[in-house]
């Protein structure tokens, strides 16, 4: 759809100065039908290093909206501070929704007002991708890192475009802070090689013993009182014995939650794991169709 070109005419004279000067030479290429939409908006210029230019935040109104771009109107000076911006306008539920735009064309409307044609995309739109905003697991280091520099994302938070969120809470190795695997295991040595016995409790004589004691070729027979043909739940029940570690012979009724570091192999009780909050970011992205349908 974006291959089809719909030109909106050449740049106005004397309007091609400033960082957006290149933009007017690029024709705004929007194919989908444009819908008139007048809503207040804010625009945060994106600096070349990806940070927001908070000193030059501009305000204006939207002129129209289409699937691939947005038309904006500004009043002060007829100049835009940047060729790429993140614009925010109120969505259907009154939350500010943001979209990254590339300025394609500026056009004066009067002495103080000018119109800007933008396409969705550019560095601002890339920044708003969810893949960038959530921490990612790096197998080489067995740790979580953010794909984008954290200080830049924090700057966008301060500009009001992003919000800090708790992406996840992970338990890490207390020694090297790497990711660990967890399993139920022996409290003494941490081994997962544990098992427990099943015993039979014969109700009539109160004898409790391993199944092998009761198991005879003629069926289950109580070794204490010699009662034959025992029926489960009527004559006997199964009782689970304590877990026994096959490595260190430790016995216990309950297993310990044991962690093992995937990087340094350090084994530790689950409650000693380092609990780390993985910080992520959230952006409310502009959905043009939702905005249009609500208007």
């Amino acid at each position, binding site marked *: 759809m974006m291959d089809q070109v719909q030109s909106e005419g050449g740049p106005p004279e004397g309007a091609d100065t400033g960082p957006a000067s290149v933009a007017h030479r690029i024709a705004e290429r929007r194919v989908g039908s444009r819908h008139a939409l007048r809503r207040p908006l804010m625009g945060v210029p994106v600096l070349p290093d990806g940070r927001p230019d908070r000193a030059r935040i501009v305000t204006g109104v939207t002129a129209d909206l289409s699937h691939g771009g947005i038309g904006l109107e500004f009043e002060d000076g007829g100049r835009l501070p940047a060729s790429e911006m993140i614009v925010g306008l109120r969505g259907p539920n009154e939350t500010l929704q943001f979209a990254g735009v590339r300025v394609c064309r500026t056009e004066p409307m009067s002495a103080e007002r000018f119109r800007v044609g933008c396409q969705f995309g550019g560095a601002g739109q890339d920044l708003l991708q969810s893949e960038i905003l959530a921490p990612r697991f790096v197998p080489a280091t067995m740790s979580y890192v953010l794909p984008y520099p954290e200080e830049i994302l924090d700057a966008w938070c301060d500009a009001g475009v992003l919000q800090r969120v708790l992406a996840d809470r992970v338990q890490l190795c207390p020694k090297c802070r790497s990711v660990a695997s967890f399993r139920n295991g022996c409290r003494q040595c941490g081994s997962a090689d544990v098992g427990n016995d099943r015993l039979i409790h014969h109700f009539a004589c*109160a004898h*409790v013993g391993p199944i092998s004691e009761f198991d005879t070729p003629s069926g289950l027979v109580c*070794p204490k009182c010699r009662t034959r043909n025992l029926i489960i739940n009527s004559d006997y029940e199964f*009782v689970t014995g304590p877990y026994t570690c096959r490595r260190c012979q430790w016995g216990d*009724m309950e297993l310990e939650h044991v962690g093992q570091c995937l990087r340094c192999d350090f084994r530790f009780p689950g409650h000693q794991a380092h609990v780390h909050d993985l910080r992520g970011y959230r952006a409310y992205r502009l959905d043009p169709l939702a905005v249009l349908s609500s208007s």
Partner: protein
Amino acid sequence: MLTDWTHWLFSHHPEQIGALLWALLLIDGPRYALSKLLMCVYDTSREIWHWLRGTREMPRFTYCPSVCVIVSVYNGEHDLEAPLRSVWGTYPKLEIIIVDDGSTDRTHEVACRFARCHEGVQVLRMPERSGKSPAMNLALQYTKAEVVIGLDADAELASTAIWEVVQPLADPQVGAVSGSILGRNPFTNLVTWFQAYEFLNCVFVGRILLARLGILGIASGAFSAIRRTVLDMGYGWDEGSSLDLDLTLRIRKSGFKIAHAPYAECYTDMLPTWKALIKQRLRWDRTITIRLQGRKHVDMAFIWSRNFRGGNFVVLAESWFFSLFCMYGIAAWAIWFLVKCPPDWPYILLTLYCAYVLFELIQVVVALYYSPSPRRDALVCAVFPFIHFYHAVLMIVRLVATTQEILVRRSYSEPFPPERIRNATWHW
């Protein structure tokens, strides 16, 4: 009144007074007071003899087998830690197994927390409430100790109690040893005071005498030590209430002796209300004399039985005589007395009361002679002039319980053990 009574007393011939007190002079006196007095005189003479000859030896702990203390507990989250703390660290070769009998409160959590902080403590769990016998038998599967000690979950041991209780097991003929059960809360109210005195007199001193005569028929479930090989021979505890008496009689049948360690002290809470006490005694009395001694283990008294021995016969005969014959005899006498209502009935009752108090005083002296802390026990014994009222209440309870058991086997409709097990087990 007292002057009238004195005149009444001296106006009768000694034979007439003797006829009034014949039961005390011929039955209760020799059994409970004079026998203990004789034992006390014998021990004192022996002590003096050894002291004069310079051969007096202080008791020493020389036997040190491996010991496993089994604590079976149901819904005891608040009481469990005290017995465990009193046991742990008091003996070198000690392991503790806590069996949670399907508790519905935080008992398992409390037990596991204790086990994590203390070495040699193991926690086991029954899937649902099954009673004490299977819980104890489950624990047997997980210990190799030479001696198994059963301990109630609301009891506390003195620091040398385990050492004391295992010493008699140095004799290979001894199969089980009973510890002394004493009141932890004797002065809470009159009911606990009565019970504390009863335990001091019957368990602490009474069992010294019975053990010496070789006719001790019970090792308390609250605190007793049992030889592991003996337990293995009989596959542990049997189902049913009063399982301590049942196990002791089975051990006697196997030919082993039952010993008593009077200075192996275990402190347990006495029941604080008459209602709770009567409920407990109804349960005990229904089971002990009729169900266990009169039905399940009655073969111990049959001369043609392979379980017959002189000592075993005396154990049962003594119980039947005092708990059945004397009890129904006293009941009959009481009815006769009420119907007949002799004109000098207040003097008769006062005479009987004074005679019984005098004999009780003998027992108090004996108890204080053997007591390791006479000052503490003297206070407990101070209730002795009134103990006969307590005994009278318990005798009525026993009368009701025994009659119920003889006629309708009431013990099998009690809520202990749980119904699914009660229905599956044998009704003796």
